[in-house]
């Protein structure tokens, strides 16, 4: 929660075939979720077949961060883009479990699995 509120949680984007892998790092809380959300929605506009969001560098995510991912899921479903999450730390996994959103998102263990 000590990150610069102006720094983007999205560290990098790379194309793997027709998929885009988005690497996210740092805590995602009220201070950073709006920027996080916008960065994710911008990825959809680049028309990948699938978006893989790698959350391996995220130690903490509050419900505003989760809500950003829900908005991304809504947008991808409307536009026919696939969405998979990968690399959830134990704490972030717990957030998805306690809110039962682990049943809503496709969550993979590895990037290979997410891209398969």
């Amino acid at each position, binding site marked *: 929660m000590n990150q610069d509120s102006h720094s983007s949680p999205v560290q990098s984007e790379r194309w793997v075939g027709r998929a885009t892998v988005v690497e996210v790092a740092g805590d995602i809380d009220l201070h950073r979720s709006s920027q996080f959300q916008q960065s994710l929605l911008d990825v959809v506009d680049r028309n990948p077949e699938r978006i893989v969001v790698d959350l391996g560098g995220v130690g903490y995510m509050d*419900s505003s961060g989760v809500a950003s991912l829900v908005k991304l899921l809504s947008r991808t479903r409307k536009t026919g883009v696939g969405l998979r999450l990968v690399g959830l730390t134990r*704490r972030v996994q717990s*957030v998805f*479990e306690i809110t039962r*959103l682990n049943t809503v998102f496709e969550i993979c263990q590895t990037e290979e699995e997410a891209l398969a």
Partner: protein
Amino acid sequence: MVETQEQPVRTATPVISVVDLVKRFDSKTVLDGVTLDVFPGETMVIMGGSGCGKSTLLRHMIGSMQPNEGSVRLFGEDLVVLSEDQLNAVRKRFGILFQSGALFNSMTVGENVALPLNEHTDLDEATIDIMVRIKLELVGLREAVDLMPAEISGGMKKRAGLARAIALDPEILFYDEPSAGLDPVTSAEIDQLIMDLTGKLGVTSVVVTHEMDSAFRIADRMGMLDKGRMLKIAPRAEFEAIRDGEATGDEMTDLIRQFLRGDSEGPITDRRRETGYEEDILEMAGGP
């Protein structure tokens, strides 16, 4: 009576630190030198009978009451010396579940939960709506989002109050009698929720209660307040041992034991019988 305050040696910095807290109302001392540390991620249950000072202690810990002596630190900040703006910044980092749920009756359940998000964040409406549904799902109340408080049961109001208390993803949650007035199943559900928030999300919980079943379900450590004094602070297992053991002859231990067991005879009732009933009633009659 010997006052003891046993606490395990901890290396973590306490997230709440109460030191030598004294509160008086006129000549009555309600809190008499209370000292208490709460560590990150633990559930601390503060128990005691009616009028023991536990609600007053809770009010000091949330910064809504000023002590006569002593200090209360949250996240290292001394609440006693903070300005109102500084106090508000600290308040965003904790949530409170009030005994009644404290919902606004003119708003739907969903609007009640959205209130802190609308007041304290710049998030857009759609994001707030998603967060509200996540919180309501967490407390098993998603279907009630459009209902008015008058249309839901007491247990549902309490769960809605909890959804609002966690709206801003607080680091600390304070619970004022979370089981009061609930049926056993709803009470157990609330307890499970408290344990999930603590165990899975690392939220620190402070629970004020006199419901012993609930206290023993959720507590990591417990503190026993009596007449404004903290008699004992210890891990749950120590209190379980006192509850399940024989009377010891030690007044403090036996007083705690009577409270935990809910026995009708013991030091608490003995004390009540010795409180000058005769003098009181004669005084009412105009003196001897």
